[in-house]
């Protein structure tokens, strides 16, 4: 009798369908209870069983409750994401009552404070795309090469020392990097390249590159680690050198992970605010050279939101640019996740 009771507790636990599980278990318990009443000598044991049944139901209820509470808390992340979208779109969309989508997205002039104001965000979008390109051109080779060096080439003692430095690079507060760009990089560039201003596309691009290197490096590293050792061993056994093995076997095998890394790195660059706010120069024009000052989307929002009259045109226009930024980063992240999923399916 007792054995069957504990058995049902045991069955309750690992089965993930506790909601229906407790009904089934208490039914089986009831039938055994009826059977045991057939003989009067086991009546006492029967009373004991009823207690056990009630306890089981209590346990099961509690388990279901806890599970539901945890699920609710876990749902918070989804809720927050939905709220962010809702509020940014809710405050951004009213701008399209004032001007057409074409004027907004392809307008060449961002002059929110002139009379009449113009809200063409094309120069801001171009600024964001340009700075993402510049920083990716530096960060992707640097990050991927660092990841390959850490996983494939460096001896493990050296790796143990170098890895934390990359992690600390990721931890640098963006405002500190922006400050460094302003007070150290800008005067340097101005002097050595004989420029009007050191605060420009190149300066901010280089700084952003070093901020996205750790992201690219750590994701790429994970995918390189995931390449099975047997592939490397097979290649080495065929007489390939370590370098040939790395380039022709390991990197192609980890290619999708490296693609994910690049996407996440670009998403980081396009959304980074403080560095472009402090170091990009802030001119809302289309850049014609690497050393032109620009005004990417995050910089425009951060610089102007404090002065924009509440729920005025400028306010809505800034939220609408945030909408564009949100869609950009969402696209990069979705592509990154797609690549990961595809490769996982391929591995399975």
């Amino acid at each position, binding site marked *: 009798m007792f054995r069957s009771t504990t058995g049902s507790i045991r069955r309750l*636990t690992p089965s993930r369908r506790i909601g229906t599980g407790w009904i089934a278990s208490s039914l089986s318990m009831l039938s055994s209870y009826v059977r045991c009443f057939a003989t009067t000598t086991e009546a006492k044991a029967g009373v004991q069983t009823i207690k056990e049944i009630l306890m089981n139901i209590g346990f099961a209820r509690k388990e279901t409750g806890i599970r539901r509470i945890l699920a609710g808390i876990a749902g918070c992340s989804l809720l927050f994401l939905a709220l962010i979208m809702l509020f*940014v779109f809710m405050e951004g969309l009213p701008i399209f009552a004032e001007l057409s989508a074409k004027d907004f997205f392809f307008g060449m002039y961002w002059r929110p404070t002139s009379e009449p104001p113009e809200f063409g965000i094309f120069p801001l979008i171009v600024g964001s795309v340009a700075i993402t390109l510049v920083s990716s051109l530096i960060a992707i080779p640097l990050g991927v090469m660092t990841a390959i060096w850490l996983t494939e080439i460096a001896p493990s003692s050296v790796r143990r020392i170098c890895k934390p430095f990359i992690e600390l690079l990721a931890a640098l507060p963006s405002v500190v990097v922006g400050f460094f760009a302003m007070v150290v990089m800008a005067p340097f560039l101005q002097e050595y390249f004989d420029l009007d201003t050191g605060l420009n596309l190149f300066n901010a691009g280089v700084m952003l590159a070093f901020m996205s290197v750790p992201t690219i490096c750590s994701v790429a590293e994970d995918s390189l680690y995931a390449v099975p050792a047997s592939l490397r061993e097979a290649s080495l056994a065929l007489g390939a050198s370590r370098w040939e093995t790395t380039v022709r076997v390991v990197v192609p095998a980890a290619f999708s992970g490296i693609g994910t890394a690049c996407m996440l790195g670009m998403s980081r660059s396009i959304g980074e605010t403080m560095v472009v706010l402090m170091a990009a120069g802030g001119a809302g024009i289309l850049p014609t050279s690497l050393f032109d000052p620009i005004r990417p989307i995050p910089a425009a929002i951060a610089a102007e*939101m404090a002065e924009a009259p509440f729920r005025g045109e400028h306010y809505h226009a800034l939220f609408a640019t945030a909408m564009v930024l949100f869609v950009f980063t969402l696209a990069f992240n979705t592509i990154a996740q797609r690549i990961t999923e595809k490769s996982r399916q391929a591995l399975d």
Partner: protein
Amino acid sequence: MQNKSTARRAARQGFMFSVFKFAAFINIAALLSVCFFLVWNGLPALSWEFLTEPPRNSMTEGGILPCIIGTFFLSLGALGVSFPLGVASAVYLHEYAGHSAFARYIRLGVNNLAGVPSIVFGLFGMSFFVISCGFGISLLSGVLTLAVLTLPVIISTAEEALRQVPGVLRESSFALGATQSQTVARVVLPAALPGMLTGAILGLSRASGETAAIMFTATVFFSKKSVDSIFSPVMALPNHVYVLATSGTEIEKTLSLQYGTALVLLGLVLGMNIIAIIARDRLQRRQGF
């Protein structure tokens, strides 16, 4: 012939390896040069007065005490909200949900939340917490915005910590007749707690270095009174650096203050990260990896 080609292959390998090594060291050099310049120029500005006095004379003299206090409350408060939420989410994802569709959507949400730019968090915080909830520009709005921002960091590190707990522990607990919640509360969580705390330190450092998210939700250029309620606006280290560096009336004159503030912020954030890295290292060695 054979020898020559082997030698050439070896030479190419040696050359490429050193190129890759160079790439890795560029990153380290970048980190060290940022630290070097800030320490070199910032150290002379540091003094006991600098750390313990409020700014004076329209922020051209004095110290940064209110900023330190503000950053302290903001980041600890954010962690106080996001840590329980994050750990509960991670427990659900790893211990309960498995590969269900709901769990997949949550993971998607967490990944995308991690990718949202901080300025968008700032705008969300402004329109939701500051305006719609009516908290105003206050410590509370900043704490909640930063909590949403650090949630993905906490969830992913907590899930990683749960992954490190061997399945044998769970199975033994089940075999002794413990229910799932008992197993989680008394076996899995204690085993995963050190790893989770490492994640919490990382979340704390992320929150204390964040600027754009609290720009419109919590901070003001200058507040004379100290923080007396959760509804009062605060000053914070990162925003102080930004304000001093970009919108002071005499930017040149406050340069040493700027370096000093940036150095304090850098020391705070890197210090927390170094603690987290050392703690993780010890933990991994104890678990025998």
